[in-house]
């Protein structure tokens, strides 16, 4: 993946994409504000949500062990996966053991994160996405660009074309003469997917919450595809990040108020499913829970950055972010786009390439994401913290081991500049001379900086240099020996 600025430079020039994104994010932003305003205890719910998640994270080992006990007691089987490869191997083995060659999937960020579909394909197993937006993305051979609405970058005409051209390769073809009316497109998806729901023996899901105290998993959705996958097949495999744990049943009262209003701007989403292990003659006979680390414990080890693990994937921060609105989700190079992606991706993966190093800079630090976040993640604070890591290097945890990373290479010039600036500001005479020199040479200043400064002026205008410095102006007008001091004038 290219670093964020290069990817964003391409997407910001795509007028259609920007129009789709602007329409979508502004629509949902306004609706969300209204839904939140209905609850006059919103700030207290938000504080409770943050506190519950913090308590969970501070004692995550304790709660995971309880969760494991309770899921097992209720008839489920718990597996632990330290990384993506291990999770994919566990899921592939579980599917193979059923003898099936295809699976239906509930929309799940975490299976995108680990690249499960590709891993299953390599093992000869076809995975069908059943969320309408994920279906659009899968048929279009595309990547999701939003946490809640993965096909937000596609308009109805594009979706019609994708359905017409691609559905037949994946199953039931699109109806003849398919129009671009949303109702017709949804109907085409219903017919296409219903065949798969009715025959599938294995389903794969994520979960929005896992209750340690009871072993209950929760999936929140709108379409009913989630319910189809969670109840019709014989085997259900849920892959869930360890941070999705909440301690008690009662804690759901907080998150089931925060999540729907923050994400889809509804009082409650159409369907919420909760299941505890297996139930005789109702739903899957076998239930497997794969608990995934994949960088989460490394994130947990960072005292400033760990708050990113509170995230409940509502996407409210995306919809208010001026950078996301213009750059689109693909520029973030990860299933987690927008402000939360800018702090989550570099932490989950580590600062391993120019993409991850660039993400903490994919923000104007305007703070709108922090205001919108239902669990009060201080995203700007973490962004600044990660920028410091990128520029200065320092102690981080990589796959469970403390290590010291070096500053990112391209930031050497910036560090040198900052050191120089620090020296100059400590030496007033030097500053004075420098400013005077800068003012007098203003006709020769380039519009774009050469050398390492170029990346800065790629996206910014150089500030206009005034004809004389403030010090010179002061000396000329008020500060000179003949001028009257303002204070004396007043007395």
């Amino acid at each position: 993946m290219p670093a964020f600025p290069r990817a964003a430079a391409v997407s910001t020039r795509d007028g259609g994409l920007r129009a789709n994104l602007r329409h979508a994010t502004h629509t949902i932003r306004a609706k969300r504000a209204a839904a939140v305003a209905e609850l006059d205890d919103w700030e207290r719910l938000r504080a409770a949500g943050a506190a519950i998640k913090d308590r969970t994270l501070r004692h995550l080992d304790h709660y995971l062990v309880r969760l494991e006990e309770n899921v097992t007691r209720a008839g489920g089987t718990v597996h632990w996966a330290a990384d993506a490869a291990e999770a994919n191997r566990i899921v592939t083995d579980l599917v193979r053991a059923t003898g099936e060659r295809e699976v239906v999937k509930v929309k799940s960020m975490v299976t995108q994160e680990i690249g499960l579909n590709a891993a299953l394909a390599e093992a000869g197993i076809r995975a069908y996405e059943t969320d309408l937006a994920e279906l659009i993305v899968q048929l279009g051979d595309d990547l999701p660009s939003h946490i809640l609405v993965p096909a937000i970058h596609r308009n109805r005409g594009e979706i019609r074309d994708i359905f017409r051209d691609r559905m037949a390769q994946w199953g039931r073809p699109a109806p003849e003469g398919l129009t671009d009316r949303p109702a017709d497109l949804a109907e085409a998806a219903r017919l296409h997917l219903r065949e798969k729901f009715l025959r599938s023996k294995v389903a794969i899901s994520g979960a929005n919450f896992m209750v340690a105290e009871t072993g209950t998993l929760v999936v929140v959705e709108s379409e009913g595809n989630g319910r189809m996958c969670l109840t019709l097949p014989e085997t259900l495999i849920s892959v869930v990040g360890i941070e999705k744990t909440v301690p008690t049943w009662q804690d759901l009262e907080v998150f089931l108020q925060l999540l729907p209003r923050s994400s889809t701007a509804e009082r409650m989403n159409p369907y919420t499913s909760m299941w505890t292990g297996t139930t005789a003659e109702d739903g899957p006979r076998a239930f497997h829970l794969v608990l995934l680390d994949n960088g989460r414990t490394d994130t947990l080890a960072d005292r400033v950055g760990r708050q990113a693990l509170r995230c409940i994937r509502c996407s409210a921060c995306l919809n208010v972010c001026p950078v996301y609105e213009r750059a689109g989700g693909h520029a973030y190079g990860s299933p987690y786009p927008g402000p939360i992606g800018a702090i989550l991706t570099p932490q989950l993966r580590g600062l391993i390439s120019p993409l991850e190093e660039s993400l903490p800079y994919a923000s104007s630090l305007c703070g709108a994401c922090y205001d919108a976040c239902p669990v009060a993640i201080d995203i700007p604070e973490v962004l600044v913290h990660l920028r410091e890591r990128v520029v200065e290097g320092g102690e981080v945890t990589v796959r469970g081991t403390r290590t010291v990373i070096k500053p990112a290479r391209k930031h050497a010039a910036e560090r040198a500049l900052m050191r120089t600036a620090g020296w100059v500001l400590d030496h007033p005479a030097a500053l004075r001379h420098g400013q005077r020199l800068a003012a007098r040479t203003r006709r020769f200043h380039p519009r774009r900086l050469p050398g390492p400064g170029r990346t800065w002026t790629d996206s910014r205008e150089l500030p206009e240099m005034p004809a004389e410095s403030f010090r010179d102006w002061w000396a000329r007008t008020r500060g000179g020996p003949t001028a009257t001091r303002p204070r004396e004038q007043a007395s």
Partner: protein
Amino acid sequence: MSAGSGRADGDASRERVLGRIRRALADVPRYERPRDHPVVRDYLRTHAERTPAESVALLAENLADYRAVVHRTDPAGLPPLLGRLLASRGARRVVVPAGLPRGWLAGARVDLVPDAAALTPRELDSADSVVTGCALAIAETGTVVLDSGPDQGRRRISLVPDHHLCVVRIADQVVDSVPQALERLAPERPLTWISGPSATSDIELDRVEGVHGPRTLEVILVDGDPRSL
């Protein structure tokens, strides 16, 4: 702790992940217990003081706002109402949970398809409607909650048919808020929370009803106790 997958490498990963968590939390004092880290629950149990009548009115309003069709009747009116609603859709095959009071559909000229473990998804798909009771309904969100009780049946029956009729007893099944609902629900039962018909907003954020679940949800609020019918 032998709850892992039973494979040696599975147990190794369990220990690896738990070990990493414990090292990552070196800043948390060893003597701190989970409960020592406070969660202030000063949020509201309900968002207004309401009379029972007001709660029911709010439930009806919020259900309708998310495009569920809401009816009100008394026990004597329930069977004729159900008969009319099914007839008006031309429903012939109607799925019913084992514990649904027999009298409810006495007036309906339909073939009853009893919920049974052997009922396949394809058989369910050929049914026109399903009639269920519920565990409770939440006024502030416009939600009905099913907990697989005898008058609700398996989770799948309220999902696959395209038309769902759900009966709510006003007297003892309406709560105001999400916190009140969770208090009354049993986590060990499979739970399905339903707020309006199946819907998607995935295409340009235009809301469309009925993607995979029932396209029509009709909720019948009953004054009085219809259980003895």
